[in-house]
């Protein structure tokens, strides 16, 4: 999922200071899974914001709503009936959702309530780790299912570097050395020979380096 974390309250209060009525929109997908912006978090943030402003004598009117997701225009359209009654929107979705709302409702300021972070998976309840960088040219088939681009701090394709210690990355002992993991998997899968193949320099065009990306399915895009 895409992971995110709520922005500091100070920042959010700063955004909302000039406004009287806002729409606080959650998202039922990724940010729900990482407990950053789902229905529950919408309720909590609403209560927190209201209390923050009540202390200063201001009553902030908050309409709470959680969409199935905010990255599809059809769902964002559901906000149409609410949008005229508010001065601004605070979206708890990832950056994709925030932008979709901003695109649809051009004359309302839209603020992000969370800092969108990485594409990852749950390590265990309450802990999410980065797994994928969206490089656009997946090598997981030849690295035993562990991604060196997302999980090696130096994104080496012919690792490990000389700092790998006890299976951990030199920059932080809590980070597993991705190449240690890859090698262990390769041993289990009997793929040691393929370790010796040099992975050539990567073509980063399929990554963000080639410019913002787009996928078009001709069979679906009428």
């Amino acid at each position, binding site marked *: 999922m895409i992971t995110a974390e709520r922005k500091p309250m100070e920042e959010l209060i700063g955004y909302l200071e000039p406004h009287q009525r806002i729409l606080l929109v959650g998202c039922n997908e990724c940010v729900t899974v990482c407990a950053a912006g789902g229905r529950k978090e919408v309720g909590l943030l609403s209560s927190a914001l209201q209390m923050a402003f009540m202390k200063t004598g201001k009553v902030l009117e908050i309409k709470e709503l959680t969409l199935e997701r905010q990255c599809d225009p059809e769902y964002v359209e559901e906000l149409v009936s609410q949008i005229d009654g508010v001065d601004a929107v605070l979206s708890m979705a990832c950056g994709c959702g925030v932008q979709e709302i901003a695109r649809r409702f051009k004359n309302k300021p839209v603020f992000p309530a969370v800092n969108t972070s990485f594409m990852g998976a749950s390590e265990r309840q309450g802990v999410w780790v980065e797994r994928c960088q969206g490089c656009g040219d997946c090598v997981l088939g030849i690295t035993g299912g562990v991604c060196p681009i997302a999980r090696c701090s*130096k994104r080496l394709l012919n690792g*490990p570097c000389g700092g790998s*210690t006890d299976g951990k990355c*030199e920059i932080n002992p809590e980070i597993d050395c991705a190449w240690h993991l890859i090698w262990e998997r390769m041993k289990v899968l009997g793929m040691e020979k393929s370790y010796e193949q040099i992975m050539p*320099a990567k073509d980063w065009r399929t990554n963000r380096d080639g410019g913002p990306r787009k996928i078009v399915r001709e069979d679906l895009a009428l």
Partner: protein
Amino acid sequence: MKTNSKLEKILNTGSLAVTSECGPPRGAVPEKIQEKARMLKGYVDAINVTDNQTAVVRMSSMAACIFIRQMGLDPILQMVTRDRNRLAMQSDILGAYSHGIDTMLCLSGDHPQFGDHPMAANVYDIDSVQFVQMVKKMRDKGKFQGGDDIENPPKMFIGAAANPFADPFELRVLRLAKKVAAGVDFIQTQCVYNLDKFERWMAQVRERGLDKKVYILAGITPMKSAGMAKYMKKRVPGMDVPDELVERISGVPKEKQAEEGLKIAVESIQRLKEVDGVSGFHIMAIEWEEKVPEIVERAGLLPRPEV
């Protein structure tokens, strides 16, 4: 001979080569690099210049190498993949070669998290293995990494690093094999304290015939004190400092520890001279460059060959 590199010439003759290292200054102070190089003149065959080592900003390796070249000495340009993409690297290689620099070391580089600019974006466009491949292609095929022809291609003698002491041990020889397959000419290892482990690594290196394909220079760093020994043992990733060594240097009074450290360095060189496949030594005396001449002399590595 692939290049005009003095280091290549010496290694080619079968003599043990000796290299050392200089860290450029943290400011526009060329005198500092010149002074360090002067200390080493006549004692080493070539001088590595580090590239923003430990991810701390210093004068660029290339600029410092140019100063050393102008003194008539032989610099080894260290370049890391952390700070430059392939365009900048190839561009710098052309520039360096145009200034008479013909030997380089291709490294990934310490992560910015260790340095003084942890907030910087990392580049890491290519890794050290791909870097070696790229420089070899420039030299032997006369082509840029992207495929276009190079006018007067740089004839670089290509080096890389190896760490026999990092984990996992079994991969350390495979990784060297990869660098050899990529086209590396010489290797400088991480500093050796665990001589037994190093010899085990060398045995595996010989088993794969890699000693016939690449020159290996063993890294030597003299300990200045028991404190340094303990620090390196505990705090430096990829370093293997045996307990006996820490005990040995801790066992002498403080004012004698530096001398003990030098003794240990000299003894290590003398033992490693006997190891098949070791073609020389890379003496890294960090912030203790003035001791390098003494180490070279006591280890019986003088006079340096003229080529």
